[in-house]
């Protein structure tokens, strides 16, 4: 008898979620096999890279991270446009860093105005990433969901503490939510149940499993994402059959290894090459674990990852 390659028996499919509207809208999810296991199933929508843009000029970025955006880094609208026009970004994640209550704590209206300007200026889908403070995000993301009516943006992180406030507005203004849970399969599933019970449509949810950077807990994220996907695809766990987004760029670029220069420690080699590779390896790992969207910073690492996706999906 001829040898037969054993096949995984899949029983589920990841839901398809559309972000954005009009010709630039992007559809993610839809796979009925493990990531890139296209010999076993379908992966109708390839994973996507989202470029990150900050809502105010970053103060602590490495020189080599600023370099590709030096001319636009003080203006979120121009920055987003450059990502799209120069680096061919298909998605933009706007990180609302200036709203952080532990930092500048800019008021809701001011920040929401920035988001509106960016969303009005671009044609690609916008994902808006809040501060991580449950209370501030509840107010901020609600307002943003309202102001962005008709744009089908994604808002997050939505936690079990503020899912009601943000979820209700997302339903009202027809936006996508990014449901964030701390590296735990059960907590991810629980939040999805809470959101769907609240009335959030099942094709309006992305899972944020919480991401660790390479060397800083990436393996935990990896295991949890792997289990998310096993539950969704082989155990018919409907409440986990949502696309996954990993907000990985800030995690990679804040690490010590992405900050030290060659002069600080010659053994570590060239800082730019090193950081770019760290970002690319992190993103690659997350994609292999099941990410549908990875958030990235440097055009060079994005280019590596796009090549990888292209080859694996060819």
């Amino acid at each position, binding site marked *: 008898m001829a040898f037969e390659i054993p096949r995984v028996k899949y029983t589920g499919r990841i839901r398809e979620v559309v972000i954005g509207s009009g010709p630039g809208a992007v559809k993610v999810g839809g796979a009925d096999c493990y990531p890139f296991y296209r010999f076993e199933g379908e992966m109708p929508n390839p994973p996507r890279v989202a470029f990150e843009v900050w809502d105010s000029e970053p103060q602590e970025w490495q020189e080599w991270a600023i370099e590709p955006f030096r001319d636009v880094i003080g203006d979120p609208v121009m920055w987003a446009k450059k990502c799209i026009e120069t680096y061919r970004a298909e998605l933009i994640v706007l990180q609302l860093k200036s709203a952080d209550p532990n930092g500048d704590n800019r008021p809701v209206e001011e920040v929401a105005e920035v988001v509106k300007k960016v969303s009005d200026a671009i044609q690609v889908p916008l994902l808006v990433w809040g501060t991580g403070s449950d209370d501030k995000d509840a107010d901020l993301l609600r307002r943003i969901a309202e102001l962005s009516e008709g744009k089908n943006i994604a808002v997050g992180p939505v936690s*079990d503490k503020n899912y*009601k406030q943000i979820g209700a507005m997302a339903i009202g203004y027809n936006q996508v939510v990014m449901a964030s849970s701390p590296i*735990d*399969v*059960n*907590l991810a*599933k*629980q939040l999805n*149940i*809470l959101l769907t*019970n609240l009335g959030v449509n099942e094709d309006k949810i992305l899972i944020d499993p919480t991401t660790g950077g390479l060397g800083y807990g990436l393996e935990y994220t990896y295991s949890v994402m792997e289990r998310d996907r096993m539950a969704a695809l082989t155990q018919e766990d409907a*409440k986990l059959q949502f696309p996954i987004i990993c907000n990985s760029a800030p995690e990679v670029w804040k690490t010590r290894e992405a900050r030290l220069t060659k002069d600080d420690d010659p053994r570590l080699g060239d800082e730019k090459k090193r950081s770019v590779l760290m970002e690319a390896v992190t993103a690659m790992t997350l994609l292999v674990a099941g990410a549908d969207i990875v958030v990235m910073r440097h055009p060079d690492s994005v280019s590596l990852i796009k090549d990888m996706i292209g080859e694996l999906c060819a």
Partner: protein
Amino acid sequence: MPPEYRIKFLPIDRTYPAEKGDNLLETAMQAGVHINASCGGRGVCGKCRVRIAGGSVGSLPNPLLSGNDWAMGFRLACTSTITEDVVVEIPFESQVDRSILTRSAILSDLGSSAANEALAVRYGLDPLVARYYCELPKPDIDDNIPDAARCARALSAKADCGEPMFPLGVLRDLGMNIREADWNVTLDVAPDTCEITRVTAGNRQSAHYAVAVDIGTTTVSAELIDCRALSAGSMVLASSTDYNGQISYGEDVISRIMYCRKRRGLAKLHDIVVSTTRRLISDIVRDAKIDIKDITHIVIAGNTTMMHFFYGIDPKYIMLAPYIPAATAFSPSGPESLPLMPGLDARVYSIPGISSYVGGDIVSGVALSGMADRSGITLFMDIGTNGEIVLGNCEWLLCSSCSAGPAFEGGGITFGMLAAPGAIEKIHINPFTLEPMILTVGRARPLGICGSGLIDLVAELFMARVIDRNGKFSLEKQGPRLRRGENGMEYVLCFASETGIERDIVLNEIDLDNIMRTKAAVYAGCTVLLKSGGIEFTDLDSVIIAGGFGHSIDIEKAIIIGLLPQLPVENFRFMGNTSLGGARIAAVSREFYTKTADIARAMTNIELSGNTQFMNEFMAAMFLPHTDDRAFPEVIKMLGNR
């Protein structure tokens, strides 16, 4: 059987049987008819007004009912008793909705005296210390054997206990004692060691008592047992329960063991648990009006750490990996090695345990449950400060312990309490008005909430959408009973004026968190143990629930909150304090006591600490009823319909 009457409730038109003397409010609760009641059934709040539309009830005028109301047939349900068939009309203000409890699934404690006697008969009535009356022939020059041998000779005619010996303490006064008694003495004999443990003047056979004690981390209970023939009536003559005095030194066993590291810490904790036990024994001796000298033996069941404290053994290695106790079985001891209290020179026996975290209390309960005699598979859950779980049948037994926390014993809950008079034990909440219907133990003024009440309360608040599936207060519902307190949101079950503590009785967010953790730990423990045995919940023949919840438990509500697996109600049995129950039977049946040792030997312990599967199951169970909807299909269906 007392005559049965038919109680018809209007306007929902539901008829329910009741017996003469039954309380009308309780009957309504059983029938699943909602009547507002917030004073626990004491006739204080005046909310349970009903109109008697046909027949009559036994009821006294109450200042909360005007003369006119009285004439129109209004009565307070909580102070009315059934005397005949009656039609009860529930006025709008007492009823508000037509809410009906879906189905009555309330199981009462099966530790009834009839069940006890049946078990004792099966194992044979043969107390651990026997009592014999002997009329000794007076010695003379021909019959000149020693006093001790004389006692032994007289005894050999009555019982087969080999060559009985006297402990030194008894021997020292023997000569004087038997002569003062004029050679007519009662001998207490412990056949296991062949010792005559006491000599008492005269015939004391008609007064032969034992004490059963359950030493829990949170509570200690004691019962006075009559060791004589079963026809004597109830086997349990008196009982008493109190918090373990050690609570002030930490709520769980780990903090108590930590305390032991202090200078004289162990001696202190030993003294405290002994004095709690002493106080309970004094109580039951006083209540039953017996002479303490007629107590021949004591049987103690407790978790392993508590047994260490009781015997004054250092438990410190229990908390250090790999968690080894000094012992789990303890030999019988007399007052010379373990002086408990003056006048009491009973022999002390204890039920053997298995491991550091599965002790004699569990072995005692498993023996009582009879699960080790049946071929069908039983899941036994003792929900105390630790949740201990045993799975198995007559061929194999697996056990495990999960640190559940004392929530269902009232620990760590703002208004939690034991199932003592005044504890709110049953609760129904109107899902629209959020007005509660409560009943207290002993129908006393509410003082707090016991375990069964907490289960009801969380289930009712959940079904009324006051609590979300993640066990947090929903912000959608509003009402006079929902407010923001010191510890976040809270639900007011009783306003201060209706209570016996002059404070509002509430359930707050921290309480909810504690209950969620406890129920999750118990359910997760069950899941892991079942998986270890390769068993599904549906393979279970029966589920036995033990613990200090209260006098009964509403199985359906325990399923709604995901404390118990979703199985048909008839598969569950509630047995209350089985640790005490097992000690009780062991006191009067040597064979049962031997059986406990067999069970202890047969059990395999599955360690859950550091078990990643347990942590994963725990997180999954931290949801109402559970993260996996497929495990609770009926509850999910009910949620959809609410």
